[in-house]
């Protein structure tokens, strides 16, 4: 199974561990992720807030490259996913925009590329049964709060799950590797990522609430599928603890890291060491 892989800027930098664990898991499961040649910025938040054409053209350039390769495009970053899938939809619906974009990027894009999140590939192309069979080190009932954030589930048209209010995709995946997913109400809550720079206090409040809710739900750790979410929950956790005086101590993994461990991959290969909040307690269970 071969895919065009779009890492995006986060996975090359702050979310290096997401990239490492994704690649390791893909390899272990026989998923061939071929990095999209000459990929460029997806446009992420700033572009679509300022310029509709730019917001469509940036992802369209990458989609056009993928189209030539005839493979589905696989994305891990939730923001990249949102931009690429969103542009795909906008271009499919708007022929005028298609023409404008073609002029801007200097190539045609017919809209034929399927943009898929890595979670979807695991669930749909590999399947729970296969993953269950491959587990060599089951998670032994570790309680995980699966956290999707806002971008993977909204808007409805782009949602990677069938029920945006109550997704089960990650839960099913993690229960297949022996984790116990907790039911909690903040699965798709916003962590405040777009205010990371401008209103860090807001981000702290929102992320803090998410962490507290996960903790109260009985989770031992959080599984994230978005580099921005993971950063906010993990990196800011100590700061949040300091300002509220409340200990949280919830490791925030990428779901790929938990999956990789269950498949028997090494912590080094999965970038576990890059986590800020100490995952030791969870991993030694």
């Amino acid at each position, binding site marked *: 199974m071969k895919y065009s892989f779009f890492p995006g800027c986060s996975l090359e930098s702050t979310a290096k561990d997401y990239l490492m664990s994704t690649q390791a898991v893909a390899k272990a499961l026989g998923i061939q992720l071929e990095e999209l040649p000459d990929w460029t910025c997806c446009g992420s938040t700033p572009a679509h807030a300022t310029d509709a054409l730019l917001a469509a053209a940036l992802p369209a350039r990458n989609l056009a490259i993928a189209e030539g390769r005839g493979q589905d495009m696989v994305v891990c970053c939730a923001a990249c996913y949102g931009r690429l899938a969103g542009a795909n939809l906008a271009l499919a619906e708007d022929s005028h925009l298609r023409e404008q974009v073609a002029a801007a990027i200097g190539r045609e894009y017919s809209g034929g590329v399927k943009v898929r999140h890595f979670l979807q590939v695991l669930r749909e192309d590999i399947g729970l049964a296969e993953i269950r069979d491959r587990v060599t080190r089951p998670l032994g009932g570790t309680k995980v709060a699966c956290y999707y954030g806002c971008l993977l589930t909204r808007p409805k048209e782009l949602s990677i799950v069938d029920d*945006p209010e*109550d997704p089960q995709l990650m839960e099913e995946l993690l229960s297949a590797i022996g984790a116990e997913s907790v039911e*909690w109400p903040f699965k798709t809550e916003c962590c405040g990522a777009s205010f990371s720079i401008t209103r860090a206090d807001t981000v702290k409040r929102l992320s803090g609430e998410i962490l507290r*809710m996960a903790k*109260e739900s009985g989770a031992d750790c959080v599984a994230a599928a978005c580099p921005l979410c993971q950063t906010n929950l993990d990196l800011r956790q100590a700061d949040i603890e300091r300002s509220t005086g409340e200990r949280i101590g919830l490791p925030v993994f990428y779901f790929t890291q938990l999956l990789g461990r269950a498949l028997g991959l090494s912590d080094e290969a999965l970038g576990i060491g890059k986590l800020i909040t100490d995952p030791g307690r969870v991993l030694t269970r």
Partner: protein
Amino acid sequence: MHYSNTPFSSTSTSMSKSKSKSTDQPVGAVMVCGGGIAGIQSALDLANSGFKVYLIENSPTIGGKMGQLDKTFPTGDCATCILSPKLVECTRNLNIEILTQSEVEELTGMPGNFRVKLRQKARYVDIGKCNACGDCEKVCPVRVPDEFNRGLSTTTAIHKVTAQAVPNAHVIDKRKRAPCISACPLEQNAQAYVALISQGKLAEAAEIIRQDNPLPLICGYVCHRPCEAECQQARYGEAVSIRALKRFAIEHEAANGNAGEPPALRVDKVAIIGSGPAGLGAADWLARKGYGVTIFEALAVPGGMMRIGVPDFRLPREVLDREIQQICDLGVELKCSSPIGRDLTVDQLLKDYKAVFVGVGAQKSAGLGIEGEDLQGVRPGIEWIRRVNLGEPVQIGARVAVIGAGNAAMDIARTSLRLGAKEVTVVYRRTKREMPADPAEVQDAIAEGVKLVFLTNPKRFLGKDGKLTGIECLRMELSDEVDASGRRRPVPIEGSEHTIECDEAILATGQAVNTGFDDGASLETNKWGLLQVDPVTLATSIPGVFAGGDVVAGAGTLSEAVAAGRRAAESIGRFINDEDLAEGRSADPRIWTEDEHRELEFIHKRERRQKSVRVQAGHDGYTTEQAIAEAQRCLACGICCECMECVKACQPRAIDHEMVDQTREIEVGAVILAPGYEEFDARLRGEFGFGRYPNVVTNIQFERILSASGPFGGHVVRPSEGGEAKRIAFIQCVGSRDASNGLPYCSSVCCMAAIKEAVVAQSHTPGLAATIFHTDIRAFGKDFDRYYERAKADGVRFIRGMVSRVVEMPGSQDLRISYIRDGKPVDETFDLVVLSTGIRPSQAALELAEKVGVEINECGFCRSDESATAATSRDGVFVAGAFQEPKDIPETVAQASAAAAMAMELLAPARGSMITERIYPPEHDFTDEPPRIGVFICHCGINIASVVQVDEVVEAVRKMPFVAYAESQMYACADNTQDEIKRTIEEYRLNRLVVASCTPRTHEALFRDTARECGLNPFLVDMANIRDQCSWVHSNEPEAATEKAIDLVRMAVGRASRLVSLSTEELPVTQSALILGGGPSGMTAALSLANQGYRVHLVEKSDRLGGRLRDQSLLERLAGKLTNHPLISVYPESRLAELKGHVGNFTSELTTPAGSRTVEHGVLLVATGGIEHTPTEYLYGQDSRVVTQRELEARMAEGSLDLPDNATIAMIQCVGSRNEERPFCSRVCCIDAVKNAVKIKKSRPDASVVVLYRDVRTYGLNELYYQEAREVGALFVRYEPDNPPAFAEASAGKPPLLTFIEPELGLPVTLRPDLLVLSAGMAPAIDNPDISELAKVPLNNDGFFLEAHVKLRPVDFASEGIFLCGSAHSPKPTVENMQQGLAAAGRAATILSKKTLVVGGQVGHVDVRKCVSCLTCVRVCPYGAPEISASNGKNRVEIQAAKCMGCGSCAAECPAKAIQLRHFTDRQVAAAIQALLSVISDQSPVTSER
């Protein structure tokens, strides 16, 4: 009340009239679609006025949504208590045929003469036989969410929808057969045995398993479990361990002994070749059918591949031996070491046997056909493992390679390890995903240390000195090409040769058939050497020879082989009996489609998640507790599992699982559509968490929570843990006023429903605090605002605002709602959240509309002409209830009567042509005969008999005075019992009847009818309720219950000894109507009645017709028809001066310009309308810029609305409404205001329109006008009643300023309007008190007329024969006024259609000697029955039988004891009490008391 069936205007003496078949004559029958309150009302009105009614209902019971409600507001009546009598009335009415679970397939023909094709779904329970005793429920093992309680409780697959269900019979819910069953080659009823295990019914489970499986325990060990692969649970979590449960049930049975009688042998003999699963499967079936079976087995031991192929660590040999022995015990002869072929051929067998079954299996290994296969160490797998399994010596190397990936490969690999191999590697050319072996076997193999190598294919075997040393292999990859098996084809990678070293290679790559049994080679084979058979019958090319199993299919599975054996056996049976081999059979297994699976997945979503993890079995299988827990994980995909436990339990033999859908054609003259509504699916508003958070419920669920008969017995508790709910939030408009979900209209009923639920909940639990989050509060109906204000006073909190989401707090499962208070966000948690889900047309209703051919509107409701009130786009088809527009119960009931009236108009010539009347023999006169009482005591199946010792009751009753006969019956109400009762009455010359059974509420009429058919007066029957009031409530005290039952019967016998025949009397009916008021409602009513052929006197106090009707064209149309109608007399400028008489025979004095006139009439309709309040506020009448909404409309109609450019128009709502003086909503003003705002904005886009309101009450589809008004730019600003807008001069000489507070800003805003429009409310008509006095009909606190019952009798007065309609009832828009007018006409027709009325019977009777004319009775009687009469010389009270409803209030209140209620006289009541005290007087009772 009136007992006997009243005759209609035609005179006939036959039991059922044949309809006259002339082309002009319409059909005197109506089809009413929908058995909710609307359909019931239409049906009753029609049937009570001479029409035959077919009442068609989708569900198994009538009653609709109303039956699910707890209480109705504002009166707080129990919904069921007021609905049930109507349901019972429907079933008792001879002219209503109720067809449940039915739907319309097609409607053809013309108005007056329609033909309807109906389909009635199978109920699987015969309504005629079912006694609703509930014995079936007790044994049903399936638990599914109870739809009636909206999933808050569970019910059984066979169940009664509610305790009060009508028809009073059970029903079985079935889906398609569960996927586990469909997936099984043997079609084993897995759902049934799992369900039975879940209820601890282990023996029954084993019995079910054995029905289809001759080798159940073997299958319990080694079946390949296709059932589990298809299990719904497997799609998310782990499949139910069906195989392990099977093993458990059979082992449990073995431990507890099982009895099976060998069947008697028949002479027809059948030979079976091979004792493997196919042969044994065939042998078992044939032996059980009584055939003589001989099995020829080539080997010295039986079992075929089960013995030689499956190692004993997977299938213990004692299990195999035991099950084979069990088959032999059926009389099967087993001949081992008897190969067929050389010495004994198939042809020879056919001489001695009627038929032959070939089930020899495929016991030869198929080679790979590659180089080196002849090397020492390369072994054919089947032959190798056979030797092992037969205990023969085998060699094993140190390093073993097994080629192949099926179960055989796993068995060989694991056996090799056990034999001492150091290293075992399984080599497979595809990936793990494609492995045919059972994943559990693979897992076990891996766990034992077997290595698996994938995408690797042997190219050749390498050897040295003739001995194997290794295998040269190629690496493979899966191509995109898919092969015949549906898997991707593996292709070799060039140059990838490598060597796997081994000293032993065992081939498990396929099986082949050894055709030695067919030495003559007479049977046809295919290119793979397998026998060629018919796929359905398994017949070979030789007649009488059948084949199945691996010999036909190649390497298959155990269960497939058994199934093939059974299939062939059935063919053999047919062959021997000369029957068609193929008829009614098919080869296709009915596997579920992906879509069907998805649908179920959605249904099971929540439950599935809770039950996703398997209960693990130990090595020795499940313990009983584990098995039950595991079995409870089953989701009951098929609902009913057809275990047949109910059939065994049903004593009246009412259950038939073989029932099929029926089609039927009927002829009707008109159709009424009343299919009701469905609730919005609250899951679509995912932000509220419905379906995920157990403590978020819908309003219907909350009604069930509040209901005493609901899942929690009326305690307000949280579904999550059953704790008390004290903080409850209601969220309004969930799926209403929600254009984004395609529901732009208002559902009309939710505001009041929520307020009522809040008030009722607060009364249930002290300290309970209810909060209602709402946008507007739409309390627009009669007395609604009073109720709203009272709720506020009772502490119900109202918070204006739309809730964006509900968050379930971890741990506590409390629910957090965030809202804005005083401009700041607030988080508040609640115990329970109730979603006020909106009303939407049901899918079934939309399908019905399409079948019937009526148009629907943009919101999906039935399109109806605004002025036609109940008409649809198809002539002769009418609509009633929420299918036309969301509406409350009274509007629904009124529209139902209106639709009935329209049907009556259409079919007036056919009235009485299709009705059935019951003709009785003359009554015997028992006067002065001593009582001879017959007592019938009912077992009610085991309902009574399991608690009360019925025999003891019978014995005791036989000793009671006057009892001439006493016996018990299984079911006193059964048809055959009625015959028995009749015979007994005649044989024993009984003159009184006592039935000791259930409640008179449902059954008294039946027994009275039976008595009447024997010439007994119906009042000579009494009942003792020894079920509801005895066995059911005292089930823990059987002895005391028996005592009590005897006492109850004793009382009934005592009273019966004093019962007397009561006579009824027929009074002629004056078939004309007097209508007061010539407005829209009065005119509509007049036209309808006249069109039905009744004379109408229409009295109008003004000089013109029309009342407040503004629509000139409508007015002209109505008035024109009216004045030209020959049956209508209009009396303008006239008033009612005096009203005398009673229902059927009123006499009125009218004051007319021409003097006084006397009118005789059978009914009176009060349609006196209302008036518009004249404002005194806002400079009305002082400033020319201030007008009323009505005046604005008039100006716009005239075109005289003169406005400057960029004009500002302000409207103020609720002027003179909803205040202390008039504390009611006028219902019409908001609608008028938004419509006028739209008109102004459309004609003058430059104008600004500002509407100042308190709540915008544009209910129903009027909401669309409100939406449009906002879209065209009208501004809506809310004001608080304690801070209303002010309109006054700002400073002297300047034009006045309009000042109001913008509530969100909290700041004052000023406007200088060019036009100020006041929405002045409505007021009751001034002469209402006079009419109230004259007609003795009540007014409510606001001065409007008060109907008999605000919910179910909206246009009736409590006094019979008097009706009300229109704004005399309460303010309402024209279309609703006209609807009520029609409704009143429909109701009136139930009286006018009769030539005579039956009066008397159970009525009050005055002893004039004792009466002192104190008027107490006159005051207490709600019906105005007692009247002071001077007819006998003195002024004494006389109770008019025609008005008396037999309630007994007068008898109870009379201080002089002058009044007795007949049938409940003091003597009769005292006799019951005396009987209880065992002092029944044996003096001869008085038997005439007339």
